[in-house]
């Protein structure tokens, strides 16, 4: 392998500096601060802290409700990822097949990505509202059957659907781009050999999509662990009785509402480790089955 090296240049350093400063200020610095706080008891209004070692982690990990939060976060991440990627792939294949009106759909499906999570949460609050939303029709048939404030599984279903809806757009763009980059000659050759659209999809398009598939899997899982806050806050507020208290939402509630900075910092570190571990597992075991051409 040929080695390339670059001479140090002040211009290059100056051009890189803004980006590096942004990464340092908004990522490394807060992360380091969180790591420090996780090992101390931090006084909410400033004024000092005490070093407590691993006590914050012990407190968090000994709390049965925290494990409930981890469980529902994992369920949420897996369910939204499967749902979002499934819908995105289906829609991308339709658009790629150039079904009627595909140009309008191609633009329209990208829109949800521009909707902020709290706005999406509010919109779905109207959809799922047991008294006034679309789901209230269920209640007019079977009174009291649909009620987010009573039934945990319904609340979880609601945030999964809202979360997936929000992530469809992102996956859709990537799936569509990947589908369109498959050379026409391959598809045409398969068609001449007598492969029908479904056969071409299963044997030709999907295998060629695996790198995109893998990329989206990593992004979607990470995203659903870290970016679900807005939807939970507007849709369920973590309830009923902690059923939708996702890890990232619990961090917000403990840290910013309850001023337990240390407990929230410890939870952030655990969440970070969990996301890193999941990403590692995906690269170690899933990526092996991915073929880059």
């Amino acid at each position: 392998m040929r080695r390339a090296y670059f001479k140090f240049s002040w211009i290059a350093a100056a051009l890189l500096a803004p980006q590096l400063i942004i990464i340092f200020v908004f990522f490394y610095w807060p992360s380091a601060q969180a790591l420090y706080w996780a090992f101390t008891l931090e006084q909410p209004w400033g004024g000092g802290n005490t070093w407590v070692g691993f006590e914050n982690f012990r407190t968090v990990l000994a709390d049965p409700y925290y494990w409930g939060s981890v469980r529902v976060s994992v369920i949420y991440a897996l369910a939204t990822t499967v749902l979002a990627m499934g819908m995105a792939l289906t829609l991308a294949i339709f658009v790629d097949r150039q079904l009627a009106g595909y140009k309008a759909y191609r633009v329209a499906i990208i829109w949800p990505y521009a909707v902020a999570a709290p706005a999406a949460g509010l919109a779905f609050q109207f959809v799922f509202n047991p008294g006034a939303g679309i789901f209230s029709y269920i209640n007019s048939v079977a009174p009291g059957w649909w009620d987010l404030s009573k039934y945990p599984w319904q609340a979880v279903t609601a945030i999964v659907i809202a979360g997936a809806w929000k992530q469809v757009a992102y996956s859709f763009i990537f799936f569509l781009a990947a589908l369109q980059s498959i050379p026409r000659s391959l598809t045409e050759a398969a068609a001449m050999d007598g492969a029908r659209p479904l056969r071409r999809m299963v044997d030709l398009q999907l295998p060629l999509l695996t790198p995109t598939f893998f990329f989206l899997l990593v992004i979607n899982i990470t995203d659903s662990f870290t970016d679900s806050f807005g939807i939970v806050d507007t849709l369920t507020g973590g309830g009923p009785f902690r059923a939708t208290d996702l890890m990232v939402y619990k961090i917000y509630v403990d840290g910013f509402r309850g001023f337990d900075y240390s407990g929230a910092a410890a939870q952030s570190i655990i969440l970070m480790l969990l996301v890193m571990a999941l990403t590692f597992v995906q690269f170690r075991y899933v990526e092996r089955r991915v073929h880059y051409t």
Partner: protein
Amino acid sequence: MQPRLFAVDLGHLEQFSVVHNVPVASNNNGYDGLDSQLLFNTTLHVQHMENIQRWITDGYALVRTPAAGKQARDSFIEGECAIFFSSIADHNTIHKLTPAFAWDVQMIPTYEGTERHNTVVGGASLWVLSGKTDEEYKAAAAYLAFLATPESEEFWVSNTGYIPVTKTGYDALLAKGFYTKQPYVNRDIALKSLTYTEPGPLTRGIRLGSFIQIRAEWLAEVEAALAGQKTMQEALDTAVARGNDHLARFAKTYAGKSFP
């Protein structure tokens, strides 16, 4: 749907305890030290929450939480429920939303056989912290004096729906006949409630660390009880045990310190 008697939002801990002069926590609701323990699972509050649970089962009350997609106030304005409990700021809001029926405001009800006490203020407060220069304190004092002028008070009261912050401000408003004109008629019921008795050790307020998390524990447990997962007593016991953990943690954060 048949109209119900109450719309219940889940916030019946503090004002209820204060108006009945029963403690939320030991140490006079936390005023006398950091080593406080919660007590609300041993007072009249338990009976009250059990009553609410029964009213819901018997169809007299409806629970309204954000997850239900509707607040107690909405149920009231729509005429779904006849009574709801809220901050006095909602007096202003309801006037603006103009419900299609005659309505009025009253002090929080108390149980038969108990004696009514004063209630406490809630919401945001202004704080002056220590460790600043004399000049800065002069400026802070001037600002607070400005807020307490009758003109500022009137501006504040008519624009926010909250109460005047000083007795002088209230008297000035009364002298002007402020509370005899709509939409302000009876809005001073809040002041009457706040000053109903002289504040005692259990009614001057609640001073507990991590109180927001304690409330969250209370809410989650009460929700679980209302969903039939446990009895109300078990729920409140759990909330107290978990709340006490928060208090112990807060005391540890401020180890060796005491209240000024």
